[in-house]
């Protein structure tokens, strides 16, 4: 269903079609607003309007407006209790889950734009480009979160990725930055190719690209086949594996993480913060939607499928977390360390998806029914809560890195020594973020982790392997303590060397307030858990 056909349909005057498209457009309004703000920014550049009104205002207002619209949609959904709506003839889907992520992403966009305004990373000349890329990437991520079609999946991922490549190399003058961008592009292209091949294989075998059709078709095709002896089975497994590679690239899962440390180290910290949270959240939304669609109602062959894929993801999660944490150990550059930290966190979050799939595999099983009906949504709730906390704690860490970089021009951990004496605000907020990343109560990170581990624990009822996952998760939390706290210790306990560049930041300045707000939210989410976890549970229920 290409655009021309849609357009023709629209013009042809079929009232029902027109109404459906209009409705789709209304639902699509947040994305449209963001796109509109991109057009405005670029147009303003043409007529030199950006000399009068700084470009970031367009971007910020666009992001806020679209966040408000999403909020309104959320409210509307809550009022009407409507069923999920397929929009654009089924290419995308509109439900609480997608609303949650679109809200998450636009909210995050507001924070990132605010951060870039405070740190001034794009200069006035580059601002329209930068914000166009940023907003464009977010539109792509929003598409990912509401995709309902394999094609949309691919388009979404690419639309989110391509601006990311450009943003990574945004510091054009820096060799390391350009190199990182190039690596990112080539690696991304490779991953995209593999994924596209996987998509075509899957579509070919199942004869559909619609998410909602996948499970029934799979059920139909494999009703009589079983085991890896069957070529069709092998084919499907291979296809799924290849699609997984695409996700693994976006989520920087081991062994598809190689781009990540280089890209993060080369990119400005603001972009690092954006990529680590935004693309991860969108990718998880998409992964969860795809896997739950594939798992379907978990009967027959689907049960086997979802158990296997769940265990496979669990295995990847174990490897990823352990690798990320261990590799983060000896890093001297804080951005590189945070890059490995994001890898590790992707692993934790993947555990939630793994637990979800494992639990889904028995949802039709009478033994588990009733008692465990809520477990799937619970696992999702954990993931969503984790993502929300992760937004604040990771963004906070990257924001502090950016603020310190602006004054010392260094991102080496050693240069952070004794910053508590000069900028106690930054040091304390950094410590809060680090403690939360470890998962120490009563900070938000603890509850995110606790929710996920709880659902992994539930999944141990289904398969013993989840015990391994749980144990690894717990062990990794202990390991991660060392390198996170090293940063906190360096900043707060070590003495500031005499020759170190001085850092000043008034506690009442807006960057300081920003940092305090973000890390304050980390503390807040560790104390007041109920509201957000309820919203997350509500959103999670849309999938089941």
């Amino acid at each position, binding site marked *: 269903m290409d655009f021309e056909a849609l357009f023709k349909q629209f013009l042809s005057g079929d009232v029902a079609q027109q109404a459906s498209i209009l409705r789709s457009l209304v639902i699509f309004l947040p994305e449209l607003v963001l796109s509109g703000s991109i057009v405005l920014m670029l147009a303003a550049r043409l007529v030199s309007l950006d000399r009068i009104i700084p470009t970031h205002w367009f971007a910020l207002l666009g992001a806020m407006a679209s966040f408000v619209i999403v909020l309104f949609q959320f409210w509307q959904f809550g009022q009407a209790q409507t069923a999920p709506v397929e929009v654009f003839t089924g290419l995308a889907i509109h439900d609480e889950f997608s609303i949650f992520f679109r809200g998450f992403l636009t909210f995050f966009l507001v924070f990132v734009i605010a951060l870039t305004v405070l740190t001034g990373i794009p200069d006035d000349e580059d601002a329209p480009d930068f914000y166009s890329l940023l907003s464009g990437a977010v539109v792509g991520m929003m598409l990912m979160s509401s995709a309902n079609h394999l094609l949309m999946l691919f388009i979404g991922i690419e639309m989110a990725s391509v601006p990311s490549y450009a943003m990574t190399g945004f510091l054009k003058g820096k060799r390391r930055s350009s190199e990182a961008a190039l690596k990112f592009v080539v690696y991304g292209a490779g991953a995209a190719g593999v994924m596209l091949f996987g998509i075509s294989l899957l579509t070919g075998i199942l004869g559909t690209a619609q998410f909602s059709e996948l499970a029934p078709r799979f059920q139909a095709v494999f009703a009589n086949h079983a085991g890896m002896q069957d070529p069709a089975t092998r084919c499907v*497994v291979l296809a799924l594996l290849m699609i997984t590679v695409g996700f693994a690239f976006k989520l920087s899962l081991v062994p*598809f993480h*190689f781009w990540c440390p280089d890209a993060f180290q080369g990119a400005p910290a603001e972009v690092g913060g954006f990529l680590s949270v935004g693309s991860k959240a969108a990718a998880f939304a998409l992964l969860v939607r795809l896997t739950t669609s594939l798992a379907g109602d978990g009967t027959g062959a689907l049960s086997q499928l979802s158990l296997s894929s769940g265990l496979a993801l669990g295995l990847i999660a174990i490897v990823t977390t352990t690798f990320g944490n261990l590799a983060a150990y*000896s890093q001297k550059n804080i951005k590189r360390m945070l890059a490995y930290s994001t890898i590790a966190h992707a692993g934790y979050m993947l555990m939630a998806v793994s637990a979800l799939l494992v639990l889904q595999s028995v949802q039709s099983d009478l033994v588990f029914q009733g008692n465990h009906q809520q477990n799937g949504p619970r696992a999702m709730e954990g993931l969503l809560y984790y993502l929300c906390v992760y937004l604040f704690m990771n963004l906070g860490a990257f924001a502090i890195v950016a603020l310190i970089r602006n004054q010392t021009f260094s991102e080496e951990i050693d240069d952070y020594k004794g910053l508590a004496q000069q900028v106690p605000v930054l040091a304390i907020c950094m410590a809060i973020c680090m403690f939360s990343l470890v998962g120490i109560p009563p900070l938000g990170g603890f509850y995110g982790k606790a929710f996920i581990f709880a659902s992994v624990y539930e999944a141990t009822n289904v398969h013993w392997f989840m015990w391994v996952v749980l144990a690894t998760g717990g062990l990794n939390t202990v390991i991660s303590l060392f390198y996170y706290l090293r940063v906190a210790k360096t900043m707060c306990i070590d003495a500031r060397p005499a020759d170190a560049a001085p850092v000043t930041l008034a506690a009442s300045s807006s960057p300081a307030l920003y940092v305090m707000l973000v890390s304050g939210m980390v503390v807040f989410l560790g104390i007041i858990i109920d509201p957000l976890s309820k919203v997350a549970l509500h959103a999670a229920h849309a999938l089941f």
Partner: protein
Amino acid sequence: MANGSLTHTFSDGIMPETGDILMFLLTVAWLLPLAGFVVEVYWLCYSHRLNKGAAYVAVACIGIGFLCSLTALLYWGNATKWAALSEPEHHAHSASHDAGHGEAGHSAEGHGEARHEHDAHAENADDHSHSPTPAPAKKYYTGTYYELARFSGLRVSLDWYIDSLTLVMFTMVTFIATCIHIFAIGYMHDELTEEYEDHEVHLHNGGHFSRPGRFHRFFAYLSLFSFSMLGIVLSGNIFQVFIFWELVGLSSYLLIGFYIERKSASTAANKAFIMNRVGDFGFLIGMMILWTSFGTFQFGDRTEGDHTHAGLFTMVRGQEGKLDVSEDGKEVYLQDAYGHRAEKNGKPLSISYMLLVAAGLGVFAGSIGKSAQFPLQTWLPDAMEGPTPVSALVHSATMVAAGVYLAARFYPVFTPEVLLGIAYIGCITLFIAATIALVVTDIKRVLAYSTISQLGYMMLAIGVAGWGAALFHLVTHAFFKSLMFLCSGSVIAGCHHVQDMSRMGGLRHKMNITAYTMLVGVIAIAGLAIPGTSIGLSGFYSKDAIVASALAYSELNPGHILLFIAPLVTAGITSFYMFRLWFLTFAGTPRDKHVYEHCHENPSIMTTPLLVLAVLAAGCAWGGEGGPLYRLIVDSETVPAAARVASVGAAKVILPSHDGHESDVHHVHSTAGTLALISAIIGMSLAYLLYVKKTIDPNQIRQQFSGVYDFLVDKWRFDSLYETMFVAPVHIVSAWCVSFDKGVLDPILHSAASLTVLTSKWDRAFDETFVDGLVNLVGTVTYNVGNSLKVIQTGRLRQYVMWIAVGVIVLFGALFTTIPK
């Protein structure tokens, strides 16, 4: 009665304003001194030390308080059409009614209980036919300011309780306080300085201690005291009384120790505080018993919604003022506000009779402490270390009378045994204090002992059922004693802080206002009257009333004749020592030329209050027991006080009735009055002979009775008795404790500490070698593993992309092998 159903008007809505307006006026009068205190205590924040403003604030607060109280009294009078002043019919009624229904008859007869129940039911039914109010007429207003806490059924709150006694006390306290505040402006004038030299404090270098003046602080304390005192009077429950009871204790402590640098002053303050704690201990026990047994602290009945909760008084005495004692005399049944026995879960509530006695004695113990009764009387003379206005206000007129006030308020809860105890305590106190006053030469201390003695009179009166007489004497005493204290203050100020009467004499020539106002006070306290008529100054009437009650009591209970003889004799002694005081100070020739020459009359700011108080001291009791003051007080009289009541219990006593022309007290009134007057005149004449005519040389008598004299000068040796009985043993025990502490406990602690240190050392060694080693090992291993992982991250793009393919193949292989065939 016109003011028949006052309490219930709140729920009825017929006359809702009276209580509220009274409450409002008295609350203003009560809280104003608090506001004044807050202003004065921070005085130096916005003004300087030499400013008299603090005094004006204090005077304004208490003065407006007086106006409010007076307004409230007049308003109350109008609202009740001054019914209280006429002969109340209900007393006559109850006198005749109660004659046959005394507690003795009630409990002694086997069927008494049943009859009582019958009566109660009948009466109750009768009530209901008239109005929905649950109980017969009550003459008080009560309500709640603020509920502090509620523990299921038990509540703690700040209440108010207003009857004619409250109003009289308010007016009296605020009036006297106003006079004394004004007097103090003059008296404390010395303190208006940056550099006050205290001549009583000698430093090591022979000089005197000097400090900044504390004029504002004095008035802040006075205001705090006024607030607390009024709080006691207004309180609607015993717990609240206790709060303000302690607050007046605090104010008293601060004021006695006003010259804190003087060792005598700080010691006296401590003594007063500690002695009062002894009494308060009993008070607390009493409160605990009440709280446990009654579940309420409330004095009056409280209507909540359409249910009336009985207060303490109703619970004990019911509607008719009778104790509902069980047949064996061991239990007292509690009564509810509707005239029935109070029940909980179908069982009648009761309190053990002995427990009720204990509660009464406990509360009275508080009174003993506060009113300096035997055996806690020794703190009051020492309290004279405070500035004289304080002695006048706190330690004679108001605070010490609070004990009497409390005993009177709590009268319904006291059983006859407790009353007998009160009577004897009062009797002993009044005699001891009066005898000591005979030999004291410090002008303020004479007054202090006379205060104790007069408080003893009041307690005695309460004990012998002379409820009205006690409070009557309380008010008259407040006027003439504050007058005399102010006069003594005037003398002290005029003579530049000379207090010893042996150095005075003939001062009336120099200080005539002080001298003659003092004479008014002396005549008043001596209880003199024109023989043959019953016209005298205030003290005559009130003391007359007390002595009459005592006589009636001892006629009904011949075993307790001492309760009449002691006050009678003491009336003579009182007259003697008061005239001795006046003659020594004002009459005769100057004994110390130096003092006499420097002596001068005080400015009008000090003498005006004297004149005003003198007028009231002379005339406030006008009309005696038919007069307005007595009628106002007696209007609040609790039911059992007026009628003759006989008791069977541990103490078989009959309480005399004293109201109406047929009453026991009335019969003996003229006899008692004549005897008391004779006694007083003898006392006065003796003083005249000894100190003016000098027909008999006091020194000779002193030598002849040197044993008695020394005994009296040593204040009956109470201080040395307490020293050996309490202080010395405490010192011995504490010395033991110290040696135990040092010899036994400390070594144990020290060895425990060294053991801990030793263990910690071991622990540390273990920690550092094993635990840390383990942690470090983990750290090193993980670090090395992480470091080796760096090898994979080569930075070569070619290798990265290759890993994609390798990854896919490896994963596929893994799945291929693991997924079941």
